[in-house]
Every structure is written in structure tokens, then in C-alpha cells.
């Protein structure tokens, strides 16, 4: 089954079996492995990508459903050379250890701050509660996202 969509600003076309999830399409057909798969049942949030502005679980979405959509993955959050302000805040606050949940945390937080640049810490926690992290205890992640709000407010 052929489909086309915009991935991180670039048009892509791919031919995948009908049952392919968007996560597997990104990872194994387009070799964009920044998006991680942690549970394949929509609980852990590691596979979160942004589809037409919404943070979605790419393990619960068929690739076909992304036909014609605008998809952003962790690879599309920063330019080639520099970390984005959100990524830099993660680094500064030590908001990642093993890094496996990080792409999903970043995409979820990016979608949140794009919509709600004034989100308070309670709101940030509420939204991030759909993404599991086993290393950090979440506290530095919340701090990082909170600090990164400034960059979204200026836009």
C-alpha cells in the first residue's frame, strides 16, 4: 500500500503492508529510528509523534492514517547543528538518563508548549503523565519543560 506524507518538512512516499503501524513505518521503512517503541499498546508514550499538530502514539496508528498528513518526529525538532531550547533545557536539567523515553517526552512537550506556552507545572505534569520514564523520576523533566516555555512564548 502506497502512501505519502510530510515528514519533518520533507515529502516522503513509502510502500508498506496495510497492517504496518506508523511507528514501524517510520522506524523500519523510512529508517527514522529516533521514534522509539516501548510497549506497542499505547501506554508508555515513547513512540509519540506530532501529526497535524497533535501528539499521537505512533504505535496505535496505522501508517495509512498518516497519508497526506504533516508528521513531526524528534529528528525534526531541531536544526542540524544546535539543540532546540526545549532540548537544551532537558540537557541542562539532566532530564534524561538512558534516553529511551526522551523522544516521546520531547514531542509531547513540544506539542503542549506550542498550544499552551503558559502551561503551569501542574498542567505540564498532567500532560506528561501519559509518557513513562524509568530513570529520572520525572522531576527534572517537568523543570526542563517549564523552563523551555520562554522559547514558545516569544514565538
Amino acid at each position: 500500500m502506497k502512501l505519502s506524507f510530510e515528514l519533518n518538512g520533507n515529502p516522503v512516499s513509502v510502500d508498506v503492508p496495510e497492517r504496518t503501524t506508523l511507528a514501524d513505518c517510520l522506524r523500519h521503512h523510512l529508517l527514522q529510528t529516533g521514534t522509539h517503541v516501548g510497549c506497542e499498546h499505547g501506554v508508555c508514550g515513547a513512540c509519540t509523534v506530532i501529526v497535524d499538530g497533535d501528539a499521537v502514539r505512533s504505535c496505535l496508528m496505522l501508517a495509512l492514517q498518516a497519508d497526506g498528513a504533516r508528521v513531526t518526529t524528534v529528528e525534526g525538532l531541531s536544526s542540524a547543528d544546535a539543540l532546540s531550547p526545549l532540548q537544551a533545557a532537558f540537557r541542562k536539567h539532566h532530564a534524561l538518563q538512558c534516553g529511551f523515553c526522551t523522544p516521546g517526552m520531547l514531542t509531547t512537550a513540544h506539542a503542549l508548549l506550542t498550544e499552551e506556552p503558559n502551561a503551569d507545572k501542574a498542567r505540564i505534569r498532567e500532560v506528561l503523565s501519559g509518557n513513562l520514564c524509568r530513570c529520572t523520576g520525572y522531576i527534572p523533566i517537568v523543570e526542563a519543560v517549564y523552563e523551555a516555555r520562554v522559547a514558545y512564548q516569544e514565538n
Partner: protein
Amino acid sequence: MGSVPDFRLVGKPIERVEDLRLLRGRGQYVDDLHRDGMLHAAILRSPVAHGKIVSLNTHEAKALPGVRAVFTAEDVSRGGEALPTIPLRLAPLPELEKFEQPVIAHGEVHYVGEPLAVVVADTLAQAEDALEAIELDIEPLPAITDRRAGMTAIRYTAVKGDGLNVSAPYVRRERFSVQRHTAVCLEPRGLLAHWDGAQTRLTVAGAAKVPFATRRTLAKNMDLPEDCIEMLEFDVGGGFGVRGEFYPEDFLIPFVARKLGRAVKWTEDRRENLLASNHSREMDCEIEIACERDGRIVALRGRAWVDMGAYMRANGSIPPRNVAQFLSGPYRIPNIHMESFAVLTNKTPVGTYRGPGRFEADFFRERLFDMAAKDLGLDPVEFRRRNLPAPQDMPYPLATLDRPEKKEELDSGDYERALQRCLDEFGYSEKKKLQGELIDGRYHGIGVTCFIEGGAAGPRESARIVVDEQGQVSVFVGSASVGQGLETVCLQIASDALGLPMERLAIFHGSTTHVKEGFGAYHSRSVVMGGTAIQIAAKELRAQITRKTGRDVPLSEIDLKSLGPLSAEGTFHNHKHTYAYGAAAAHVAVDPKTGQVELIDYVTVEDIGKIINPLTATGQAVGAVVQGLGGVFLEQLQYDEHGQFLTASLADYLLPSATDFPRIRAFVTEEAPSPVNPMGAKGAGEGGIVPVGGVVANAVAAALAPLGIEPRSLPLSPPKLWELIHRGPPG
């Protein structure tokens, strides 16, 4: 020759070098690897806890499109030879060999999830579809799901003084238990094995934790010389003790790759991860304390039983060994006699999980201490203060463990000072006024406990530093990264030791290609063992350069391009463990109508000797606390009475999320350098989790004291607490 290196970067909160790739989606975890023409494996696992394999027919599965092969025990045993088994990596004994797990089930199955067959196909979907086509007939046998009906594989005894017989004016005996739970790394395990017949070379990507030990076992089981096998470590999405030990798949995937002469990839899904990766923590005990009336402990004794699951796995000996030896924790106890029994059942086998045996021991001991303090009319903090060793007591001996004999001693520290710092940060004198108070319908409670964390397992670690013709400097170390920030701390140490900025150094770790031997990442050993080996190699390299140039200056002042190639090796030998130590305090509010507990405040203070990077040390402490809180309130691997596994998804097995525990404060200090290594560093990263069960349960007990309730088992889930509250105190 330069003396001890100045600490320029060591001790600073350096942002991690790993983050630059991990934040941009450029990390490389094992499932990210692609090899042209690689095949995909899926594993058929037993749906029955205990049974006789009547038939296993793979005929139809083999005929499905895309299926290249289906392997069962018949294919592995090569016509009747004994199946390879997984040896104990730690504390092996000949009498435990009969309890080792075969790499694939044959004749009988002993737990739900035991591998029965491996399907290899062109795509993963084809391999998974083919699993459904295998005809399997298992005749069920009675399943043991309660350790009281199980067989003891081994008994360990930890002894000090006359723990069995000494008595005192006050004695109390209690029973406690901890539920089965485990690490649940966010990245599932995975392997990509490739066999090159022409070169007689097996390459296995996905190694973690102990790649050299894994290679040793794999070489033996595959009848290959070790140097024909290359174990490659990529980014690893969490270890916590569970990932990287030798599992059946660590044999099966390389085996099928060799049989087919192809590259074969396997990635476990979350169901397999919960079912097949090591479980841990399931223990119960009966322990007794004997004290003087003033609270001084005279003796601690008792027994613990560990539900090991169906086999003794690679590091399965550690939880029962640790619970016996570390029951006394940081306290000065002259007489100890603690036995632990490793009991076999029909569940997933057990291994270590961050703070193995220590989390459980702290829950048992600290619960008993609070009961004793209450009986004796002592403030629980004062009770602990009276039983901590003083700095002049160091080194202070712990109980000696048997089978094989293992002596331990606490290395250094002012334990009471760490306790006081914790009380100050927590605001204990104010908060303790809330003890047992009913405020807005919720009971408040405070708990305070002390703990130790062992680190720096020997026997040695190796490092090598190479300067090439272009003057590029590469640091190779036998330590392994499981996501803990190894690269950054090793580069900080190397940079200071060489006198070169971090940016000029490349670091390589984990894989078997880098050093002659390596011991990996367990028992919080990487900083002390790998870090010191790097320092020794750096010193050797600088000595070489001094001999060539006549100058002993930081290498940033030397034109390395004109000197290369150079190579220096370093090995650090060590047989003494480090002991980080500290205290934890918790404030909870319990709603008696629902059994819901809110964690209002949590403080942990840990002295870890020389701190390499306060950012990563503090981060690991906070993360460990929250991981421990999962074990206290949420996480439980459950079975029904037939041994059927009930918690095979993250919707059934609950992990802490961002909204659960927002108030955790961690402080790491460096007041007591370890005398057993030149940096004075102590192993760290597990300490945060060790006291969590004890301190939180004590806070809950204090909150519910007006109702006369003493929690004796974890988890402290709302339904369980509700039942305790509404059923009233037992008896």
C-alpha cells in the same frame, strides 16, 4: 612524573555528552540497527506454568510464506546431547548446577514464558504469524505458586557473634513480606546476531551490562573460542540489574543466526519483557530483634524465604545472599544470625533488580525497628541514633556470609551526621508534630530510616588510552553503559588525568573489542573500577610521553601529533567494597476512607565519597527514589493459583507516572572518601531505592497508629490499606 591529578572537571555538574545524540533522535539502540538481508525471530513461549510437552509440531509453521526455519530443543541438542544451560555468573556452586535453566525447554515446561521454539522469517510479522501455526500440546502438571510448597535450592547463612543464642530484656519477633516486582526498563531487550562462516565470526549486537561474561557463556555453549565472538554494546535503554544478564535468548538468537548463516534480529515486546526478563523482590521473613531497655540492639536473627521462580538464573543467588548479609544495614549490631532460603516455584526466574535484597532487607528491618522503638517508648530517630556506628568504629564488620564465604566491612563515614543532615533538610522537629494527626480527614505520618549502598565490585577493571598518528586520543574502558551517563563521568576523569579538554577525547566502552577483558556495570562499580583504571592508564601514558619529551606537563601543552601512535593500559585491582550511606525521611497523608496515600515530602541524603558529577549523582538518586515508590505503591507481578501470569502489559503492571510523586528532594554529599580507591569515590546510583520501602511504610504506620495498624507487607496499594483500616488490626 605528575602526582595525583588535579580535579578540574571531576566534581563539576558537567552536562552529559550522551545527551547531544539522545536528544536529537540520533541514539542507536539495538532495535534501531538494520543489516541488509537480516531475518527476524519470534519466540514461542509456554502458556502453561508446569507441564509435560506431549507434542510440538512445527510442520505447518515451517510451510508458511517467508518462514526460513523453526527451531526447537531437538535442533539444539543435536540428537540427544544435553542442552546447554545458563551458568550462575555470581556465587556459583556445583550444587546449584542442577537448578540452572536450559536454553530452551525440553520434556517439561516450568514457568509461563519459558521458550519452546524460535521461528525465523523474512519479516517480523511473518515470524509472529507462524507462532500461531505451531501445534503445541502440553499436559498440565501441578504448579507451585506459593513458596511454602516449593523446594529449597540453597540456604545461605550470615553470622556475626552469637546471634542465635544471645538474649536481652526486650525481644520482638515479626513477619514481613515484599511482593514480586522488577525493573521494567523502557527499552525492551533485543539482539542482532550475525554469523560469518568464512571468517568463523559471530557478531552479537545488543550486549549490555556484562558483555565479557556473556561472551564467555556463549562461547562455551556454542563450542566456539571466545575470540571468534564479538559482543557489541550500543545505546542501552536502562539496566537496573535486569538487562544484560545471560538469558535463553542470548543463546538462541546467535544459535539460529549460525545455523542459517544469516543476520537475525529479535526484539522482545512488552509482554515478553514482563514475562521473560528477570523478576525480583518476592520475599518474606520472620525476624527477631533483641534490645536493652535503652534501645541498644544486642542481636538480630531470623529467616527469609525468596521465591526464585523456576530456575537459578545467572545472578539469582544475589537477592537471597544480600537479604541475609545486609539485614543489619548501617547499624552497629554485635550478634547476627540470619538465614535465607532460595525456593523454587513455577514462576519466571529471579535475578537482581537495583538494590537487590537490600530494598527488601531495609523494609523488614526498619519496620521492626519502629515497632521496637514504640514498645520501648523511644523516639524512632533516637532509637536509630543509638545504634549507628561512630566514625572511629570504621572499618566496621558486617555479618559473614557462607557458600561461598564473604566477609564485608563498612569502609568509612559519619553516619549520624548524614542522619542529622536529612532531619535538617526535612524539617523533622516541626514535621514530627504532625505524627498521627487527623487533618481534613487524612492521617499524617512521618518516617525516618538509615541505609547503606554497596558498590565497587571487583576483581578488577581495565582501560586503554590510545593516541593515533593524527594526535587523536581515544579512551577504551571495560565498564558498560546502561544509560547511567558513563561516557560523561569517564571523560571527566580522563580529561583531568590527562590534562586534555573533554572535547579532545573519544570514549569507547562495553564492547568486547575495546579491551582485553572487562567486567561491566553491576554493583555500582563503574566509577570506582572503570574510573580508576582510566586514571592508571592515563598516568602510564603521561609517563611514556615524559620519557619521550622530557616534559611532565598537561597533555594540552604537548603536540601529540608528533608523538603518536602511543598506547597505554591500566588495570585496577580491588577486592574491597565501598559503602555509601545516608538517611531518608518521608511525610505521608493517608485517607482512611479510600486507603489512598499521598507522599507530601520525601528527602534522601547520601554520602557517596568523592562526587564525580553532582548532576548525574543527584539525578540518579531522585530517579531511584521514584522507582522505589513504584515498588511501594503500584508495581506487582501477579500470578493466579495455576501459575498463569496476570500482569503482561503496562496497563496491568503500573509504573509511576509524572503526576504520582512530585515532591522528592535528594542531596548527595562527599564528606567521607572511601579509603579503598585512590579517588575516594564510592559506588552510587542504587542508594536512592534501598530505603524507600522501609521509610514510607514507617510513615504510613505512624499515620495509622491511632487506628492501631502496622503494615507488614508491600505494596501499600489503596485496596490493601483500605482492608487493613476497615478490618482493623489483626488478632
